[in-house]
């Protein structure tokens, strides 16, 4: 697998949105009975799972090239 730096950027983006650092302390929106920040954390986690699976299935690991390096 070649070095794809955009993959790291996507993961940093997912962490930035998934970790609820940007919410004010005293506000707690509820959506479908769950705190909104929890819902977003779960959605981001689902996105991270699909993204990781995509990377693993899309890019082959170039075995011979790496070992010969």
């Amino acid at each position: 697998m070649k070095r794809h730096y955009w993959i790291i950027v996507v993961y940093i983006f997912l962490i930035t949105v998934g970790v609820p650092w940007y919410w004010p302390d005293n506000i707690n929106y509820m959506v479908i009975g769950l705190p909104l920040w929890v819902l977003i954390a779960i959605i981001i986690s689902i996105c991270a799972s699909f993204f990781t699976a995509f990377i693993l299935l899309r890019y082959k690991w170039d075995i011979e090239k790496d070992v010969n390096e």
Partner: protein
Amino acid sequence: MNNFQAFDQTAFIFISIYLSALIIIGFFGYRARQENTLKDFYLAGNGFGLAVIFLTFYATQYSGNTLFGYSGMTYRIGYSWIMCVHFMTAIIACYLIFAPKLYKRARRYNYITPTDYLQHRFGSNSINIVVTVIMIFVLSNYLLAQLMAMGRAMQGLSSADPNTAYQQGVILLTLIMLIYGTLGGIRAVAWTDVIQGSILIIGLIVLLFMLFKQFGPISLATTVIQQTQDFSKINVPDANRIREWISYILIVGFGSTLYPQAIQRIYAARSEKILRQGLAFMAFAPLFTALIAVIVGIYAIAYVPGLEGTASDQALTRILSIVQKNSSLGYWLTVVLYAAVLAAMMSTADSALLSISSMLSKDIYSRFVNVNASEARLTLLGKLFSWCLIIILVWLAIYLNDKSSLLKLLDRKFDLLIQLVPAFMLSIHWRGSQALPTLIGLIVGIFISLCLAYGSFNFVHEGKIYGFHPGLVGLMFNLLITILGSIFINSHK
């Protein structure tokens, strides 16, 4: 635990059949061996196919800690523990950093233990011995946590006195695990992982269904928690918890990939394609495992209030006891779940034990005591070492009963494991990485981590520095020493 309705004889027969099946699989593993070599015993010769690789990764990674510890932690801190779904996903992302290159080298150079890579990369006995000792220590700690979880599970299963049930649980389940592990090696461990992983997945999905049926939607549980005015378990986490969240993503993400048994599973895949596909499946595992453990914890906050301290690790058992009493369907589903919980613990413990056994025989005995030992002798010695070690750990598990929360054991091992990042992940990508600075960095990193974790400092609260694990601070110094030292050595060559 006192509220739990003990299982009847039919349920015991069901669980006994399940446990007996594990021993039978061990026997089949013994029959399936192709040769009496380390590679055959610890890596199953040519390796495993997709289903086995996925389920053995899954059953090994999700343990008693996941089910009891995570639901208990949710009980203590509330929705904030949703962070566990993030850090369990981070593990698979971190595999992308080094698994491709490590797998290639393992296939080409026939690695068996994790330090075979280090021997090949650095040719340094000092690094090997330090890394092996760290890994054995960490795995023993991990194994101990699983044994204790087995005992706690048995407390819920039996109507006997809790202490007696705990001791019987630890001894009986460990014995079964030892028998099939000794007979069939990695084949028995991986094949039992297939059963254990399948039961665990089915059991957890069934549990989710049972929770909704018994208590209604999770929104209702959230409302109940709100009515108790305990907003800390629902509100947005404070700044310290946010830092802790990021810290967990880093320390568990990187640390878990460096478990010796996880590295050996990378070696044991039959092909690169199978390994990639197995890990791709694993990327979804947090959603149907860690997330369900969090949901259990939320229901427990709402409907089983009043659990304090180590008792909060019983959140799952308490919830199961309510579901069990509700209907005969609930009762039987609980029996299956109990088998799943036992499966989770045993599958994690057996992998850790097998890994320790391989390191003791190959990395220590074969490298430092008897370099001419035959493979058959090393395999036999590995089995003997695992029996000796397990006797000590069983004694410790019984001695430590109720003295330590499950998650405290979990925290410290990652502080140590993450110090292996430069030795494995940096060195595999950077040819300039040198043995001496890597070794010094590793030792300094461990020293700093342990000092911060166990010393008394004003800025350390609950074993963390402003929410960050001490291991991350240690890793910064570790990386700095490794990189600067390697640059220095390379520039003077």
